[in-house]
């Protein structure tokens, strides 16, 4: 079963968590990203996530496979929303199960960082003043040591 998937509708984290649990699990660490009403000092009215689905699913799956290999964890999963989201909607969920909490926390943190850095998903924010913008943050592309450009706003 895929560990990473995109969802164009709201999804239930309790179901996803249940899919990770078994008798060997001592710790479950999770992270959820929610749409908040402000970003970088601007009042946000809502946003849209666009993905390149084939590549996003492939890259997301690669991240989760790598996490299971790098960390002493039992399993991990991630779901990312696409489409239009309102304030207070869930954008992304990461769940990790392990025998012990050290590995669960470390893997959960690593996964969300990698997803944000590598998976081809783009956020389009609509602001309260009717302006809007694509976010293209200024982290260098993976495998590229350049990238010192100012963020596009």
């Amino acid at each position, binding site marked *: 079963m895929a560990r990473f998937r995109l969802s164009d509708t709201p999804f239930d984290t309790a179901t996803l968590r249940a899919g990770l649990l078994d008798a060997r699990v001592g710790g479950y660490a999770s992270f959820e*990203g929610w749409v908040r009403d402000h970003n970088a000092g601007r009042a946000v009215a809502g946003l849209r*996530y*666009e*993905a*390149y689905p*084939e*590549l*996003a699913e*492939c*890259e997301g799956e690669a991240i989760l496979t790598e996490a299971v290999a790098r960390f002493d964890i039992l399993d991990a999963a991630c779901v*990312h929303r696409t489409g239009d989201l309102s304030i207070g909607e869930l*954008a*992304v969920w990461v769940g990790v199960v392990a025998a012990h909490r050290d590995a669960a926390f470390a893997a959960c943190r690593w996964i*969300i960082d990698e*997803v*944000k*850095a*590598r*998976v*081809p*998903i*783009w*956020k*389009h924010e609509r602001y309260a003043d009717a302006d809007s913008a*694509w*976010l*293209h*943050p*200024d*982290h260098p*592309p*993976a495998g*590229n040591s*350049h*990238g010192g*450009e100012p963020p*596009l706003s």
Partner: protein
Amino acid sequence: MTRLTLLYFASLRDAAGMATEDVDTDAADLAALYERARERHGFALPRERLRVAVDGAFAAWSDAPRAGSDVAFIPPVSGG
């Protein structure tokens, strides 16, 4: 001339005014392919801030364009 399809996402799609574009190109590599699209559509993003993918897998800018392929220019991502 090599015929292929360009895929645009996010701010590149907005700037191009299209999500896909069929082109005939004699560009020697994917880097040159992007530079021509950038001139054509006035993209603000320099190539150094992008990645490139061919047929749904990341590729190298030095790769030669392949006939019939989908070439995606990947602007800096902002999921999460």
